[in-house]
């Protein structure tokens, strides 16, 4: 997958995490997978339509999700992922997607984002894509976050 198409997604997630106060962000190597299977208990995803089409997802453990939701909710202590937490995480995803759109518009790539979804469950088995997927693992001070981009190109 062309780097100029995937790098805005990764740049946006790092930008937004830094903006909300997540520190010590570093990433492991970018991996290309033939399909993507996610086994984390929490996955947030958003669709991409327009000049390019696909799905972007971010997954993490429930503990990391609680840390992210806490930051989004001004440091409130989070004991479980409830409605308000899921809404806060959806809003975070909207922020990342909005940032991504802006970065693409600088490259004259016209795209639109769909509404974000946050899925939480137990013993999850997720197929995000049957196409090639680019995955990046972000290590942060609040836990590990997986970022995955799958584009039909």
């Amino acid at each position, binding site marked *: 997958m062309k780097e100029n198409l995937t790098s805005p997604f990764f740049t946006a997630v790092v930008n937004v995490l830094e903006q909300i106060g997540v520190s010590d962000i570093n990433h492991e190597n970018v991996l290309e997978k033939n399909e993507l299977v996610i086994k984390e208990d929490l996955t947030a995803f958003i669709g991409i339509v327009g000049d390019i*089409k696909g799905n972007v997802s971010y997954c993490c453990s429930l503990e990391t999700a609680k840390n992210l939701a806490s930051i989004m909710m001004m440091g409130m202590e989070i004991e479980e992922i409830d409605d308000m937490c899921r809404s806060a995480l959806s809003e975070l995803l909207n922020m990342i997607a909005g940032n991504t759109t802006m970065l693409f518009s600088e490259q004259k790539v016209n795209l639109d984002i769909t509404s974000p*979804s946050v*899925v939480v469950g137990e013993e999850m*088995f997720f197929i995000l894509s049957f196409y090639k997927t680019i995955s990046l693992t972000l290590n942060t001070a609040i836990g590990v976050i997986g970022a995955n981009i799958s584009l039909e190109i």
Partner: protein
Amino acid sequence: MYKKLMDVFVNSTESILKEMADIDIIKKSAPFTIEEDFNSFGVSSTITFAGNNSTKGRFIIDISESLALEIVKNILSQNVDNIKERLALSCISEMNNTIAGDANTYINNNFNLGLRLAPPIVFAGKNIKVANAKLESVNVVCETSFGNMNVNIGFTGGEVI
């Protein structure tokens, strides 16, 4: 809310389920609104979309495991023991893609929403909740001889039809 659009998705689901898997919907609930999270029966496929005038939304077919296994068995003409097998989930995903494509064609021809679909996502698990920020959804529960199925559609933005 977009109740007219709900009818389109339910009609497409009913006809494609019959066409692809030879399964009849024997009873349907009246459409009801879900304002908070959507609780899954266990196997879900989601397609999100965006269209004219900032219309956005998502379509979910959400199926009990017993019904999902029956659908897969009928489409593939082979038994599958575990719904979490790749082949089984890709089959559910493809059916959802066909339903959403069919409904989307009708909607764009008749309501001029210019909807563009993202590729389907499919997942299975226990105690699944699907949250959508600022999205009110309408749900219809469909009963079959093999288990239940939710048809759920949520829209935001655009003009109310």
